[in-house]
C-alpha cells in the first residue's frame, strides 16, 4: 500500500477511493444531495465496466451486448418484486444466476465464432433480450416499470440513499479485490494468453473455449449484479437499460479508462459521467444553446480516442511495472 502511494497512479487511485468511501458524508456536508445520486450511478457503472473489462480488456472478446446482463439482473428483481417477492435474499441470487445462465447459453453459441462474427452475434443476442423486455406488456413494455426496492429485512434499508451507496461501494471494493487476484491467477493468465495468441494457447494444451466460456459466464454474472443495483437505484426497470447504446457506452467506459487494467474501469466511469455533465456547460460557454448538442463533439472525440488513445486514462499515468 505504501509502495503504491509513491507512484502518481497509486496516489490518485487511493485518493479517489477515499473520496468515494466517504462520499455520502461529503455530499451531506456540502448539501449536494444530487451528487450522491451521481456517485451511486458512477459506482454501479464502474462495477458494470469491471465485468466487461474481464472479458474485453483482459480477454480481448469484443462483446457488444453486455447491457443485456443488466437487463436480466434488473428485470429479475423487477419481475419478482412485481409479483410480491420483495426479499433481496431471493431476488438477487435469482438475478445473478439468471444472468449467468444466459451468459452460458450465449457464450456457448458465440465463442465458437471469431472476429466480426462474435461482435455482431453478441449484439444480435442483446437485441433479442431487449425486444423480449420491450414486448413484455405485463412488465411495462417499452415504458418500463416502477418497482419497489429490494428488502433486506432488518439488515439494510435500500431506500436510504447513503446505505444503498455504501452497499454499492462495498460491492465495488469486493469486485476490485477479486479482479486483482483474477488478473494474475492461473485462470486470468489463460484468458490473457488467449487474447495474445489463442492458437498458441491451444497448441500448448489449453482448451481455450472452456476458459473463455467460464470468463464470459463470470462476466455476465457480475453484469447481472450491476443491473440489480441499477434497478434498485432508480426503483425502475425499462428496456432502455439494455439498449445497444448502453452496451456501446460501456465499451467506451472500459476503453476510456484503460483496458485490461485494474482501476481503468473506475477511471472510465468517472470520466464518462464527468464528460457528460461538463460538456454541456462547456459548449454553452462557446455559444448559448450549443451545449445541447454535445454529442457532436463527443462522437468525433470517440473516433480520435479509438485511433490515437487506445491506452486510455490509465496510460496517462505512465508505464506499469510487471
Amino acid at each position, binding site marked *: 500500500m505504501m509502495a503504491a502511494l509513491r507512484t502518481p497512479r497509486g496516489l490518485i487511485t487511493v485518493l479517489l477511493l477515499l473520496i468515494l468511501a466517504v462520499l455520502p458524508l461529503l455530499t451531506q456536508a456540502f448539501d449536494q444531495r444530487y451528487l450522491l445520486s451521481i456517485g451511486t450511478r458512477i459506482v454501479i457503472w464502474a462495477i458494470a465496466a469491471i465485468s466487461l473489462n474481464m472479458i*474485453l480488456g483482459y480477454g480481448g472478446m*469484443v462483446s*457488444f451486448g453486455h447491457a443485456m446482463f443488466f437487463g436480466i439482473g434488473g428485470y429479475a428483481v423487477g419481475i419478482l418484486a412485481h409479483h410480491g417477492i420483495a426479499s433481496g435474499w431471493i431476488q438477487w441470487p435469482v438475478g445473478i444466476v439468471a444472468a449467468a445462465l444466459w451468459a452460458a447459453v450465449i457464450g456457448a*453459441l458465440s465463442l*465458437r*465464432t*471469431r*472476429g*466480426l*462474427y462474435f*461482435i*455482431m*452475434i453478441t*449484439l*444480435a*443476442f442483446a*437485441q*433479442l433480450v431487449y*425486444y*423480449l423486455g*420491450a*414486448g*413484455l*406488456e*405485463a412488465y411495462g413494455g417499452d415504458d418500463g416499470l416502477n418497482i419497489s426496492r429490494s428488502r433486506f429485512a432488518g439488515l439494510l434499508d435500500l431506500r436510504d440513499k447513503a446505505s444503498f451507496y455504501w452497499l454499492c461501494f462495498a460491492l465495488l471494493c469486493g469486485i476490485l479485490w477479486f479482479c486483482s487476484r483474477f488478473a494474475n491467477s492461473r485462470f486470468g493468465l489463460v484468458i490473457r494468453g488467449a487474447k495474445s495468441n489463442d492458437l498458441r494457447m491451444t497448441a500448448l494444451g489449453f482448451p481455450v473455449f472452456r476458459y473463455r466460456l467460464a470468463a464470459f459466464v463470470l462476466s455476465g454474472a457480475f453484469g447481472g449484479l450491476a443491473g440489480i443495483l441499477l434497478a434498485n437505484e432508480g426503483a425502475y426497470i425499462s428496456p432502455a437499460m439494455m439498449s*445497444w*447504446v448502453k452496451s*456501446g457506452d460501456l*465499451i*467506451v467506459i472500459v*476503453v476510456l479508462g484503460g483496458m485490461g487494467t485494474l482501476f481503468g474501469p473506475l477511471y472510465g466511469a468517472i470520466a464518462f459521467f464527468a464528460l457528460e455533465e461538463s460538456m454541456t456547460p462547456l459548449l454553452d460557454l462557446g455559444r448559448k444553446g450549443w451545449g445541447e*448538442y*454535445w*454529442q*457532436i463533439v*463527443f*462522437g*468525433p*472525440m*470517440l*473516433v480520435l*480516442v*479509438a*485511433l490515437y488513445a*487506445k491506452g486510455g486514462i490509465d496510460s496517462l499515468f505512465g508505464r506499469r511495472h510487471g
Partner: protein
Amino acid sequence: MTRAERASEREPEVDYLLLQMLNGVQLGLLMFLLAAGLTLTFGIMDLVNLAHGSLYMMGAYIAWTLIGWTDSFVLGALLALPATFLLGVVVEAAVMRRLYGRDHLDQVLATFGLILFFNELVRAVWGPAGKSIAVPAFLARTVEILPGVPYPAYRFAIIVTGAAVAALLAWLVARTRLGMLIRAGASNRRMIGALGVNIELLFSLVFGLGAVFAGLAGLMAAPLSSVKIGMGDDILIVAFVIIVIGGIGSIKGAFVAAMVVGQIDIIGRAFLPDLLKTFLSNSAASSAAPAISQVLVYIVMAGVLVWRPTGLFGQRT
C-alpha cells in the same frame, strides 16, 4: 369465368397470405439493400461499420430536403443518391481509411462515435421532431398483381426498384472488372493488392456504393414509416443478423438471408398469434406473440449458427 368470379373462388386467407408474402418480399429487398453494402465492407475491407445505419438515415433526411426543394419525389430521390454517394466517399476518406487493418475494437469504437455524431447532427440541422415523406401521388393507389389482390403501388415500386438494384449488383459482380475485384477481395484480401489495383480507389468506390444502397433503402422506407433520428440504428442490427446468416462477404448470401428474414418477420408477425393460440390460452398468446415475433429473426440466427458457424455462404475456416 370472369376475373371477379375467379377471384372470389379463392379463400380470403390465401389472399391475406399472398399479401403478407409480398410484404415479406418488399421488406427483404429493402433489407438486402442495407445489408449488401455492409457485407461488402465487412468482406473486402474487414471493417466493422456500425455507422452504416447512419447512412440509411442520412439518405432519408437528404431526400426529405431535396424533395422539399424540388417538390417532386422522384427528382428528390434521384438527386439524393449521388449526394449520399458523396457523403459515403467523404466518410470513408475522413474516418474509415484510418481504420483498415486495425483492431475490430477500434473500428467498433470509432463507428459508434460516428453514430452519436450523425444522430446529433441530424437533430441540430433538422430538429428533434420526425419528418415525413408522403407517398408520391402517382403511386398512391393499388395495383392488381394477382387477380383480386390489390397491392399498394408504392410497395410494389419498392419491390421493382429493389429487384432491379439486386439484378444490377449481380451483373456488376459477375460481369465487370470492379465485380471481379470485389469477388477476389472478398475471398482473399491480400490478393487484390498483389493484382496491382489502386486499393484506395477500390475501397472508396465500394464504400460509396454501399452508402448509396443504404441511402436508397432509407429514402424508400421513409414513406412507409417516418424519417426520424436514429432510424437506421435498430434496423442495422437486423442487417447484421442477415449478414451473419448469409455469411460475411457473400452478396448471394445476403440476398438469400434477406429474403428469408423478410418472410419470417412478416409472416411471423401475421400468423404467430394464431399459431400460439392453438396451444396456449388466448391471453397468453396475445401477450407473448408480439414479443416473440420481434425476436424470431434472432432465434433463426442462433439456429443457423449452430449448424453453420460462418453462415450459409460464408468462408469455412
